[in-house]
């Protein structure tokens, strides 16, 4: 039984890899368009960076955080978001799938729907955004002089994993709602793009209410603020290392909502 599970899992993984390779190859047919879009992604987040840069030309710190610490925070958040966007973009364009009725095709195939939706799109163009995040990350690390221990490296990795999970969950909610509304709700952008945009500063600066909200309702703070405090040596309790993984739990309600949505699905015909 276990062995069969393992084989099925490996098989899915192989299928997913195949999906990715199809996506990448088709994108590479339009190299110029790919480069331009990647550059555009870079430019858009570069604007945000410039905003932070010039703010810190005037101010030396915000609450307890200095310029390089904010950059580190922003870069990790941006990386988390870009990772999730890269591989879960299929959920984002899911409304089209529901409306055009091509979700019917997904349902008749003997594979998990999630795997197929994920495989429907793989946005390599988010590389532009990642590149910028990595540059800022390196700068932040050099300037913050963090003493790197194994625990701290783990913290960063957990942050990336937890954050990517969190945003994937949000994209999944966005898609699941399409089952009921047939079109994407613009309001959901607040939770994804808004979080990326305002997650550039450590959440603690927004005050206690927002911190509570982002701890217990949608756990942004678990992948951003708390582990950051540990990373910067402002807190020392080892609990902070594992908090980002707790954000992975957020995937459970998202998945349940998705299941409800799939049950509820009525083909829109055509």
């Amino acid at each position, binding site marked *: 039984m276990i062995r069969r599970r393992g084989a099925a899992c490996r098989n899915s993984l192989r299928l997913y890899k195949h999906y990715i390779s199809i996506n990448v190859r088709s994108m590479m047919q339009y190299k*110029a*368009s790919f480069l*331009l*879009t990647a*550059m*555009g992604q870079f*430019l*858009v987040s*570069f*604007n*945000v960076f*410039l*905003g932070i840069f*010039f*703010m810190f*030309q*005037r*101010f*030396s*710190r*915000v*609450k307890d955080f200095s310029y390089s610490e904010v950059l580190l925070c922003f870069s990790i958040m941006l990386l988390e978001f870009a990772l999730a966007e890269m591989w879960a973009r299929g959920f984002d364009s899911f409304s089209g799938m529901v409306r055009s009725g091509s979700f019917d095709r997904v349902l008749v195939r003997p594979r998990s729907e999630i795997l197929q939706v994920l495989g429907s799109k793989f946005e390599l163009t988010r590389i532009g955004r990642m590149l910028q995040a990595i540059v800022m990350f390196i700068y932040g690390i050099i300037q913050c002089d963090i003493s790197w221990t194994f625990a701290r490296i783990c913290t960063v990795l957990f942050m990336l994993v937890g954050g990517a999970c969190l945003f994937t969950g949000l994209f999944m909610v966005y898609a699941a709602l399409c089952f009921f509304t047939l079109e994407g*709700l*613009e*309001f959901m*952008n*607040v939770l994804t793009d*808004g979080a990326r*945009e*305002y997650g550039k*500063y450590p959440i603690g*600066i*927004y*005050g206690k209410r*927002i911190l509570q909200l982002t701890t217990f309702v949608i756990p942004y703070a678990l992948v951003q603020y708390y582990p950051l405090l540990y990373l910067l040596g402002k807190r020392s309790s080892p609990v902070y290392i594992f908090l980002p993984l707790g954000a992975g739990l957020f995937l459970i309600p998202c998945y349940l909502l998705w299941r409800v949505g799939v049950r509820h699905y009525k083909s829109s015909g055509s």
Partner: protein
Amino acid sequence: MRKYLSFFRLRFSMGLQYRTAALAGITTQFFWGAMEIMVFKAFYEAEPESFPMTFEATVSYIWLQQAFLAFFAAWMIENEIFDAIMDGNIAYELCRPIGIYHMWFSRSLANRLSRALLRCFPILLIAAMLPAPYGLHGPQSMLRLLVSLLTMALGLLVTVAFCMLIYSLTFFTVSPKGLQILFTSAVEFLSGGVIPLPFFPERIQRIMELLPFASMQNVPLRIYGGSMWGREAVNAVCLQCIWLVVLIAGGSSLCRYAEKKVTIQGG
């Protein structure tokens, strides 16, 4: 003139149809504004002495910016026009006995106006009701309100004229995507969309204020908030007029030149 007016009316009433989208937009804008204000508040609390304008002026800048986003956001550019240029539908537009430049101009203007009109009032109303430092304060004087309205109209015209320049440039490229992204992010940043211009270092700010981008949202939002008045405001209005004339002249001549050279590749 009458035909452009009817184009304007058509687009305007079309824009007013999208009420659900407007409602979603309002919630988003409201959230965006609130978060933005919290960011500035955090900076203000850290170092109030480094703040280049009063906190109240910053708050009203942000609320007005969110309320009139459709006026000044460069990324609300019209994809229909790009598509028309790309897929050759422009041929139909060229057949019409009217100037393309003026037609598109009135159309973009109407789109932005209808969008903003649907969205601005709820945001303004709620923002005005918020408690003291976080709410939008009333106009300081009648004159200031009138000048803000005037400069807002000018700023809207400058924004549309600048977008027209981008549309005209599209005639000369194969893929408009790159141009579009480059220009919209430049406008966003240089017009004070990311952070208000007074927050930039003084020397950079002085240069930025001369650029056409500063004639967009920067002037009306700052005049209303109170961080710009007197001689500075007069200069800004003059500059707005100058840029408006320059941009329209440049855009329409570029458009005329492009119209002559355009080749429709079948389809």
